[in-house]
């Protein structure tokens, strides 16, 4: 890897961390979402530099869409989406900061103590073909399971997200005395 590429990769890494911190610092929820997007795009840039163009593209496209959806949800569910009225939305701030720092410290200690068996650098083979052949060959089971998991996620997500239908009129434990109907009417009501 050239020195320039290494410096750019490290700069993108630093950018990813700074943007990640900003997610929990800025007041505006839109800014928080786009900070997270920036963090993901920086990581996609690192992937690009490290010879993984396909996965970098997948990450960038997927995260852009995901954060667009997330921005909508942030504005829907946050009390203070625009950050015009700064408020604290945290609990156990110092305990969480200590936990986060402890995780970082333990991982970093390990990273700098291990004697890494670095492979000799040379020309990398076509990584996209490498991944495709692995997924369609040796790791086919992974591919099949991922497909099933994603399909199950679609079903479960839809079922959880849609409003309850006419079969849930008496509540999840059927304990409601009067049925909760969206439209009034019917026998005896």
């Amino acid at each position, binding site marked *: *890897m050239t020195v320039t590429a290494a410096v750019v990769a490290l700069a993108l890494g630093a950018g990813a961390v700074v943007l990640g911190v900003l997610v929990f610092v800025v007041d505006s929820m839109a800014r928080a979402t786009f900070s997270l997007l920036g963090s993901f795009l920086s990581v996609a840039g690192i992937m690009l530099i490290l010879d*993984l163009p396909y996965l970098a593209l997948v990450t960038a496209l997927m995260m852009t869409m995901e954060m667009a959806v997330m921005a909508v949800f942030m504005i829907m569910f946050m009390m203070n989406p625009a950050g015009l009225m700064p408020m604290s939305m945290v609990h156990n701030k110092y305990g969480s900061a200590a936990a986060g720092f402890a995780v970082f410290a333990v991982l970093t200690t390990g990273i700098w103590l291990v004697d890494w068996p670095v492979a000799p650098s040379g020309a990398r083979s076509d990584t996209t073909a490498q991944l495709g052949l692995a997924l369609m060959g040796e790791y086919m089971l992974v591919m099949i399971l991922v497909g099933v998991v994603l399909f199950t996620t679609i079903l479960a997500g839809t079922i959880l997200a849609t409003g309850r239908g006419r079969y849930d009129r008496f509540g999840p434990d059927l304990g409601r005395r009067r049925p909760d109907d969206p439209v009034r009417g019917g026998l005896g009501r």
Partner: protein
Amino acid sequence: MSDVVLLQLLLTVAAALVGVGVYGALSQQSIVMVMMGIELIVNGVLVGAVSAWYFLTPEAPDPQILIVLALVVMAVEMVMGFAATLAIYRARKVDMVDSATDLKG
């Protein structure tokens, strides 16, 4: 800069992302912000896996499969997180983790 140092620096970036994510997931009250913390943790996993693949086992596709799995985990986490947020909001008008303590031990 040697490859070992570069690998260690990139892994440190990954560790920092995981650390920030842990802080976010533990400290935020809003369910959506908790999900952002979890996303940052997986983001750190991505950086770690990519760096490990590039510097340690560039000829083996296994870490690339791990990256694909991390991306799938992110997608599943987002979908189920949003769906659960919608479901609990519909049922009880709850949008904060402090109000959803049914499973608290």
